[in-house]
């Protein structure tokens, strides 16, 4: 067992830090999304260094992996500094294309992803198909040389700035529900697509936007079918396994927690000093141990990834991260008394950031695979418990 980074890992980390120091601006900071010109440019500069395509063959625009943990070091440093991280474009979309798509599709899309040429939306969720994606109803009707789609999707993050949709649609309404879904790549400027914005709760100017997407007789060329017809659900499930990037870094939580602790070291409420209050001290101490556990689960997932796909470890990381994020936000507000709920102004610690943190924390528990659903995944895939239908956990591949 060796918990230390190797010299080459440290060298790469320093290279990433130097890049961030050089390229980071206030416009880039503050979101993991690549949704503003400044953030797009920041990621494109990383792409030029070959950091997006690490581990993919060079003929598809990839670059050699310096060592197995390079991707994690990169994302951890990005997350620590509040920069956009390398996420679904590479983790889900490029990986799935690489494993299942035709040679033409690989040649067309992989280099563009690795150059950061245009953003992607993952367009799966429907009002009646959230946690249970297999229940999606939005149909793509086979018209020979193309598919025609009329219907809608919602909670589609990134749709308002994407160039392509990575879209799952029902292609066989008569087959068992997991066997009638296919994946398509759809240009966002295809006629028949319309967006309606959905705003998450939050302070004006800080909210995260997501979208409803409506389709009216939208046509998708047959060449944009990814892999085989009706295999889409299996691809979606497999993508969870490719998604090494799903190992979300804990670095930003550690950074935010340390900021709170630092604030309390010097806080003074009319002479009452929280740094000497036993309850405050123990509450922060307890949280600090729980945050450290998060960094440990992250380490575990990272180390596992050197040998195999850490699917379960990634789920644990997600559950712990979202749970602790929530506990942390609750605590941060609880300890502030009435000031915790302030959304700005003179007496607002962190300029209202704590209230923002609280509102986002609940959202993180339900986004991208809810906490309780993910716990069931851990129970089934790690502990071998049967699923609720008594069926085998994963479809046969």
């Amino acid at each position, binding site marked *: 067992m060796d918990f230390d980074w190797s010299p080459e890992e440290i060298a790469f980390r320093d290279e990433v830090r130097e890049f961030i120091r050089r390229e980071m601006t206030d416009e880039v900071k503050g979101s993991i999304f690549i949704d503003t010109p400044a953030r797009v440019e920041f990621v494109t500069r990383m792409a030029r260094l070959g950091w997006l395509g690490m581990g993919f063959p060079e003929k598809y625009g990839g670059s050699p992996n310096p060592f197995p943990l390079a991707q994690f070091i990169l994302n951890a440093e990005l997350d620590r500094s509040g920069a956009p991280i390398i996420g679904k474009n590479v983790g889900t979309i490029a990986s799935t294309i690489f494993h299942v798509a035709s040679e033409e599709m690989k040649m067309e899309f992989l280099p563009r992803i690795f150059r950061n040429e245009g953003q992607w939306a993952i367009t799966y969720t429907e009002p009646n198909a959230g946690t249970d994606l297999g229940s999606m109803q939005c149909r793509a009707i086979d018209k020979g040389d193309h598919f025609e789609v009329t219907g809608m999707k919602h909670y589609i993050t990134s749709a308002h700035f994407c160039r392509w949709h990575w879209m799952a649609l029902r292609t066989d309404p008569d087959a068992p529900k997991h066997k009638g879904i296919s994946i398509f790549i759809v240009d966002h400027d295809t006629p028949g697509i319309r967006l309606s914005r959905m705003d998450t709760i939050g302070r004006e100017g800080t909210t995260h936007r997501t979208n409803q997407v409506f389709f009216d007789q939208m046509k998708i060329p047959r060449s944009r079918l990814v892999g085989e017809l009706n295999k889409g659900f299996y691809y979606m499930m497999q993508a969870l396994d490719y998604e090494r990037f799903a190992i979300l870094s804990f670095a930003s939580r550690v950074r935010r927690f340390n900021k709170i602790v630092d604030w309390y070291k010097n806080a003074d409420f009319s002479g009452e000093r929280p740094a000497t209050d036993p309850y405050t001290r123990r509450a922060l101490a307890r949280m600090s141990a729980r945050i450290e*556990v998060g960094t440990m689960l992250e380490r575990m997932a990272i180390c596992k990834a050197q040998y195999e796909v850490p699917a379960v470890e990634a789920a*644990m990381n997600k559950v712990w991260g979202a749970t602790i994020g929530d506990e942390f936000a609750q605590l941060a507000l609880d300890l502030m008394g009435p000031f915790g709920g302030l959304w700005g102004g003179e007496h607002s610690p962190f300029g209202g950031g704590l209230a923002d943190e609280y509102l986002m924390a609940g959202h993180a528990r339900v986004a991208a695979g809810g906490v309780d659903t993910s716990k069931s995944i851990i129970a089934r895939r790690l502990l071998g418990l*049967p699923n*609720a239908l008594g069926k085998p956990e994963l479809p046969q591949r």
Partner: protein
Amino acid sequence: MDIKLTEEQAQLQDIASKYMDKHCTFEFVRRMEKESELGFCRDMWRQFAEMGWLGMIIPEKFGGMGMSLLDTVVLIRELGRHICPSPFLFTSVLASDVITQAGTRDQKAELLPQIVAGEKIYAFAYQEYSRFFKPEHIRLQAQKSGENFVLNGTKLFVEFADGADTLLVVARTGKANSQTGLTLFLVDRSSAGISTRHMPTMSRDRHYQVDFNNVEVPASARLGKLNKGWAALEPSLLKTVIAFCGYTNGAGFEMHGYATKYASERVQFGRPIGQMQTIQGYLAQMIMELYGADMLTLFSAFQIDKARHARGYVAKAKAFSAETVGHVMDVSSQIFGGMGYMEEQDTTLYLRRGKQYQLALGGTEYWEDVIAEEIIDREPVVLT
């Protein structure tokens, strides 16, 4: 960075696991609880010695194996899985380390090989009438009398005090209510003036109240410098705490395994209860906590082995492992339903121990105070 066990560690784990499977059965643990006078088995102790375990961290020049704390955690986790009752922790971790670090040349040459050979068992006489684990709260007096010292006072929760040959006593020789002014003594258990009384616990283990009534010990019984006992003890105590976390994590993993197996097999409403999301949620939550506690424990051991400042990590490991073992024993028992609370059910051996492990060697609040000292009163150490 790699958390895989080395080949040697994997081998050690395998040997320990097989040995424990064979010798530390539920029947054995129950016998130690109810029938054994000492609460542990001397034959087993001799076998530990034969396998070299008793000298795990003792340097090779004193006959030990000179292995790391991380290795020790790997071993003791297997003892914990089987809730093995033995004086290993205070003999082969605490006493071994503190003698190695603070002992004189003569003390090391005499005492360490005895530990390796299984000839001497140590008990730790520290806790007094205090909710916490603070050195400030130690009041047992050691007064100089000519060349000798005379000890007066009471120690509580001294595990295996009746089976031990030597008591490692932390006594006050100087300033009251302070971390300084403490001195360590290695007191022969058979010294005149020592009396013990069993303190019955829900674990049916062997904790004792030890009364010291004018116990006269020679100057050679002093370990380390006068009034510098805490400085000598604390580093070894942190190692002991980490080893203890390894033990309780092992116990937690084992209990979790029994609950998982039961959830897969127990059928109600026509299906295994493990199909229900609530049960899945319990088991998933607990396995995350166990992995977290385990990793934090191993990580702390690694930092200690590298001689880095690890007090904050140790405190986090202990606070979290303690909470975890308590939680895992409770919730796992719930999964067994009524059976989880029947005397005949073997998992109750774990349930009865969980809370007590949580409270031992400083409870959660004590270690949270230590964490607070590290993160609030002192700049956090940033590891790169």
